[in-house]
């Protein structure tokens, strides 16, 4: 809400400059976000928290300043009408729904001599961004800003049937409002209606047909208390927020209802002639809240950590407008004024005292820490994530963070229909799917980088994917996504090398080895987003952990990716139980290693892994390691056949092995391979 300092000083005159005032208010919880110059003075733009509707008015702010500076408020004068005529008997006011409108009051004014809005009211309104409309409407707006109670005036002659009914709208009813729009109403909306139709959306906006204009001379002046929850609901449903609905939503002061109405009459009488002013007619009763709170001093000290002297506490509470009912060494009992509906319990008072006293006067202490056994348990999931990040970054991958909510239509195919978690109230209609896979985000990341000229990149992401679980809370699975493209950079000392699927495979093998899974299994797999024949499924301890492969040509085309991409996803929740950092040390042998190479020609379809595992299986305790170092297919080798070359290392724990015995063992293994795989051995020779 905008507060003009010139206007404010009509009610309170603190001994402080406007800048100081703004700071002091901010430090008391009434935040002044911006200070602007407007028409001869300064205007504070305040941000009022939802628990302080009483600050949505000049008198409310003045009250706060009065408490902070211990300076009195100057209440606006109220001109009483010389004579009040009775409210007309034949004009009926009826509230059909007391829970939606607990208290409704009104007065009729007849024969108001039309007059221009006085300059000072106009200036005040314009200083805070409100347009001047006509005298009567301007006065109601002025008073609303002054005391926080919204009021509405109806042109009496335009009301039909000498009656006003405060009721729920009927199905099918609509109203043409003063903003020029037509609103369809439901039974959830409260309206003020005459005998024929709704004439106002209660507490929110008046109807065009009965609005007061310049020449209007007879008015019905409404001032009421509407149920905050219902005003809020209607306001949200219709998409209308007004100064009026804003205040009702936060709960107005029941005592202020009549005060405001009388203030409007007073200002009208000040500036023009009125033939008749009636007494008020009302329905319902003022909804009063619990009126007293006891504050034990010991509790305040226990909560704050310091003791605020009783005398000071009392003074602060009094300055805030609270009534002191009882006080002694141990406690203070206060009555809560009707404009402080936010104060209901002792901690609320503790906050009031502390903020006026000054939070800066509370010292900084550190709490004592007792050992918490629950907190000592290890956190395997956090550790796994942290270690995975470190390992992958060390292996040259860059961490990406992508949105959890993605384009539904584009990415629905990444999971079965029944697993999709859809968002129903997105602002951006297209982003309505909780990601069922990390791939969309990573593919978009790659696309963005490729299109911006990055020739190569290696990404990983660790985060949740979301899969529906019937009507239960969806499953959130921790997942690792990887994607890369391009080639290593060409440098003055090295030639570039294309990056691809095997770089992903290698990174994962490295990661798994770190987690204690030494020999994972890789199986051919298919996936809708991978190019046929490039999909690899990772299996460990008999469970599938995920799939990697090359992105399909179709996806590359769809995303406009020039450079091919290798990517994959691993289920970290499934990996977690397999992770072990247990190790058993083996004494390294002090005897020399003897290396021998083994080349063989095998059918193309034979997997190198199976040959390798046969070697490991058949080798005796001398065999320390097997490493595939060459694969050759093509020229110089006939069709359907490929050459594999392995480096084998032999070592004994007990003695130096002789060249002859190693050779014999090596040949024995070669012989087994020859038989088992029908392999040809062009050479099983000694390492140079």
């Amino acid at each position, binding site marked *: 809400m905008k507060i003009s300092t010139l206007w404010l000083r009509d009610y309170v005159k603190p001994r402080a400059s406007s800048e100081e005032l703004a700071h002091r208010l901010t430090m008391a919880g009434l935040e002044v976000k911006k200070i602007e110059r407007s028409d001869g003075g300064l205007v504070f733009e305040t941000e009022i928290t939802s628990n302080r509707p009483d600050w949505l008015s000049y008198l409310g702010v003045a009250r706060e300043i009065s408490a902070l500076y211990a300076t009195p408020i100057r209440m606006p004068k109220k001109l009483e009408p010389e004579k009040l005529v009775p409210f007309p008997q034949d004009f009926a006011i009826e509230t059909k729904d007391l829970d939606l409108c607990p208290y409704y009051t009104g007065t009729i004014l007849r024969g108001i001599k039309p007059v221009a809005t006085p300059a000072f009211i106009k200036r005040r309104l314009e200083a805070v961004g409100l347009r001047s409309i006509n005298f009567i409407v301007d006065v109601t707006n002025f008073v609303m800003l002054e005391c926080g109670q919204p009021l509405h005036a109806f042109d009496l002659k335009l009301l039909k049937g000498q009656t006003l009914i405060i009721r729920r709208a009927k199905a099918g009813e609509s109203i043409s409002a003063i903003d020029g729009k037509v609103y369809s109403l439901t039974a959830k909306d409260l309206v003020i209606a005459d005998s024929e139709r709704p004439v106002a959306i209660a507490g929110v906006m008046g109807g065009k047909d009965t609005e007061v204009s310049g020449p209007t001379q007879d008015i019905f002046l409404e001032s009421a208390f509407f149920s905050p929850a219902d005003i809020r609901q209607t306001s949200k449903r219709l998409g209308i927020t007004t100064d009026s609905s804003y205040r009702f939503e936060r709960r107005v002061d029941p005592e202020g209802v009549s005060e405001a109405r009388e203030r409007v009459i007073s200002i009208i009488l000040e500036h023009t002639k009125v033939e008749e002013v009636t007494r008020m007619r009302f329905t319902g009763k003022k909804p009063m809240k619990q009126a007293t709170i006891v504050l034990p001093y010991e509790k305040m000290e226990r909560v704050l950590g310091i003791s605020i002297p009783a005398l000071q506490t009392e003074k602060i509470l009094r300055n805030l407008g609270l009534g002191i009912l009882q006080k002694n060494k141990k406690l203070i009992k206060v009555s809560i004024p009707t404009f402080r509906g936010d104060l209901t319990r002792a901690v609320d008072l503790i906050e009031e005292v502390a*903020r006026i006293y000054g939070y800066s006067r509370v010292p900084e202490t550190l709490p004592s820490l007792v050992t918490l056994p629950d907190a000592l348990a290890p956190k395997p999931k956090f550790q796994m994530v942290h270690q995975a*990040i470190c390992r992958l970054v060390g292996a040259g991958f860059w961490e990406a963070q992508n949105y959890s909510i993605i384009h539904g239509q584009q990415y629905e195919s990444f999971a079965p229909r029944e697993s999709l978690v859809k968002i129903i109230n997105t602002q951006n209609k297209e982003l309505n799917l909780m990601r069922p896979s990390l791939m969309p985000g990573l593919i978009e990341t790659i696309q963005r980088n490729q299109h911006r000229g990055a020739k190569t990149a290696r990404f990983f992401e660790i985060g949740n994917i979301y899969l529906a679980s019937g009507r239960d809370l969806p499953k959130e699975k921790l997942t690792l996504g990887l994607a890369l493209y391009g080639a290593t950079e060409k440098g003055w000392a090295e030639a570039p090398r294309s990056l691809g699927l095997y770089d992903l495979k290698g990174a994962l093998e490295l990661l798994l080895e770190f987690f204690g899974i030494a020999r994972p299994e890789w199986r051919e797999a298919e996936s809708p987003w991978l190019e046929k024949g490039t999909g690899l499924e990772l299996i460990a301890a008999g469970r599938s952990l995920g799939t990697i492969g090359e992105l399909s040509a179709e996806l590359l085309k769809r995303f406009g990716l020039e450079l091919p991409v290798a990517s994959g996803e691993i289920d970290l929740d499934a990996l977690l139980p397999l992770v072990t950092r247990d190790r058993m040390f083996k004494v390294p042998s002090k005897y020399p290693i003897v290396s021998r190479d083994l080349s063989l020609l095998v059918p193309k379809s034979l997997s190198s892994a199976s040959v390798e595992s046969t070697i490991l299986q058949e080798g005796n305790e001398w065999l320390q390691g097997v490493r595939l170092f060459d694969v050759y297919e093509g020229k110089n080798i006939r069709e359907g056949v490929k050459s594999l070359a392995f480096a084998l290392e032999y070592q004994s724990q007990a003695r130096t092995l002789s060249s002859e015995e190693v050779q014999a063992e090596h040949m024995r293994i070669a012989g087994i391979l020859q038989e088992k795989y029908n392999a040809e051995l062009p050479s099983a020779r000694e390492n140079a």
Partner: protein
Amino acid sequence: MQDISSLENQALEKLSTLDTLEALEAFRIEYLGKKGKVSELMKALGTLPPEERAAFGKTLNGLKAKLDGAFAEKAITLKPAQTKTLDFTLPGIRPQAGRIHPLTQVLREVLDVFERLGFEVVDGREIETEFYNFTALNIPLDHPARDAFDTFYTETGHLLRSQTSTVQIRVMESRKPPLRIVAPGRVYRPDTVDATHSFMFHQVEGLFVDDKATFSDLKGVLSVFVRELFGSKAEVRFRPHFFPFTEPSVEVDVSNMILEVKREKSAKPKWLEILGAGCVHPKVFEAAGYDPAKVQGFAFGLGIERIAMLKYGIHDIRYFYENDVRFLRQFP
């Protein structure tokens, strides 16, 4: 057969006159090689009578050692000076190291401080129920306070948490006090996306509960945190505010004198808000199953993106989710 001492003199004299590597090599062959003079003497050892062998052998060894030593010294002086040159300005061959995302880096830093202050890191689900996100936090459906925590809903009637305090409630339900926890994670708010707002961001919320935690403890803990993160000269101020789940409530600002924020001269606030906090509201304790008469506590929350933007002078939150390598590269 030459005697040893005259051979020694002859050899040393000859050695001192040499001035080329070729001549040195010729000397070596002549005196120290397999068929050289010293070798010949060694062979002659066998022809001597036994009682003379020991003495002769010892002297011969002495000669050999002396000549070997003199030879080595001469070789060093004759070796040409180093002529190989390197261009030391050539860039080092960098191993291809990756990057940790700046949000992860800042999160790690923040959690690190709180862990040192005695807090335990906990985790929880992102998609939640009405109860954990609103009801248990004293945010009634029909109150305007709810607007600040507006949230996304799924088809099944669940919602995306708007703050990680949902995790705190769950922990309180499953554990007895005392408690010191911080809960990091993604949160969601239907904000229009612009340079400083995103519909998704990362939060860390903390909770300290025992039988006597005070407002002054809250101030102390958060002041330590701010100074650890922004430097010992950082100033902190506690400004009254409102949250439905705390009373008293504060917003914590840090002075931007310390922060090397790259801003235009015109827009330079002195205080930047980084934390919301307060003493836990009795209603929250009740909803979680704690007796408000027996426990006291404080809670706080901060946004990781905001901290990262302040620390690094990043003016647009959207950079974090583009994962452009030109952005990520700047945070090794």
